């Protein structure tokens, strides 16, 4: 899965408007942003890609792009 494929998945998980969602989206600006969303990103990656994301690194992400970079790191590791 490439970054371009991941973006719509991430948008759905974060309940973001797919038209306005991009790497530069600031997470705390999303209308449905809360602590549960992090867990949903973790589940998405676990179920779709079999990746276990590092929770403390994920907690530090400010933008969608930073989450995608974490996932890419995991995929290439």
């Amino acid at each position, binding site marked *: 899965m490439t970054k371009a494929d991941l973006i719509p998945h991430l948008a759905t998980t974060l309940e973001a408007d797919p038209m306005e969602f991009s790497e530069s989206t600031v997470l705390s600006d999303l209308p449905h942003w*809360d*602590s549960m969303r*992090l867990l949903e990103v973790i589940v998405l990656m676990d179920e779709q890609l079999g990746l*276990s994301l590092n929770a403390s690194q994920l*907690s530090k992400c400010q933008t969608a792009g930073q989450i995608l970079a974490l996932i890419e790191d995991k995929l290439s590791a």
Partner: protein
Amino acid sequence: MIENMQPVPMKATIAATEYYLPETVLDNDRVTTDHAEWTPEKIYDKTGIRERHIASTDECSSDLAVLACEKLFASGKCKPEEIDFILLCTQSPDYFLPTTACLIQHRLGIPLSAGALDFNLGCSGYIFGLGLAKGLIETGQAQRLLLVTSETYSKFINDGDIGTRSLFGDAAAATLIVAVEETAASDFIGPFVYGTDGSGAQNLIVPAGGMRKRTTTGELQSDRFGNRRTEKDLYMNGAEIFTFALRTVPKSVDQLLKKAECSLADVDLFVFHQANKYMLDNLRRKLAIPSEKFVIALDGCGNTVSSTIPIALKQAEAEGRLHANNKVMLVGFGVGYSWGATFVQWQGGIR
């Protein structure tokens, strides 16, 4: 041996369980007051919790424990004078010292000849308690033992922290564990799988109030999700605890199945620590456990820490989902990190 008679080997079994919830109810309307981004429906949808029970200001762990034990005595399953050991699991004791188990021995009129001790564990506590109880009974040190779990986590929770306030509820549970003569059948409790990883200590912690940091300024701090708490309050890193559980619980289940030489299909009922519905749903899916065999029992009480498993057992029995001789898998996991898993062959209702 002084006499030539061999003692009859004894096995430990759960004979009965009762629980007590404090009267004050905290519903989702009140939890979401001052948190515009959350609605009561959304809390219920994510956590599976409709309401929690909260101990009153002057109500402590020993008070909840006494009420749970009195329910057990009132059920006719045992009398205080028959109890010869109390194991009490709490992380919110009445005092640093004395031991809460000693307080309840006196208040319940349990004989002076009884042993009593507290042990400090959270959501894994019930499993460890069953392990300790089995050890005491099967080595002949106890015959009729009370395993009591009692928490007032609400006293550690800041009203401004919706993350913890929406999940945890206060409760106590009392489980009677008795010695029965060994038959050809397998153990009633066990085998056990245990695990500990203190590297996760900082992710579920009350940082101040103990000896490491007895006093604080009481300054309120906000996190990135707008939750507010002081250092005397419970802190939970939800994402870390969630990934810990997803990583650890399926492994423990596999280890237990191997140790017990059985498969997932041989298990009649799964009773996991009732952390929250979201976590339980994810664990169930990951383990491919059919929902009719998987107990979710936190709607009316929330995450009651070490009491979730006995409460879930009691509710499953009341709903007709748990029957005599059922093979039940119990898994506890959480603060520490600490986790444990075991099987019980359900004998609730024996005298």
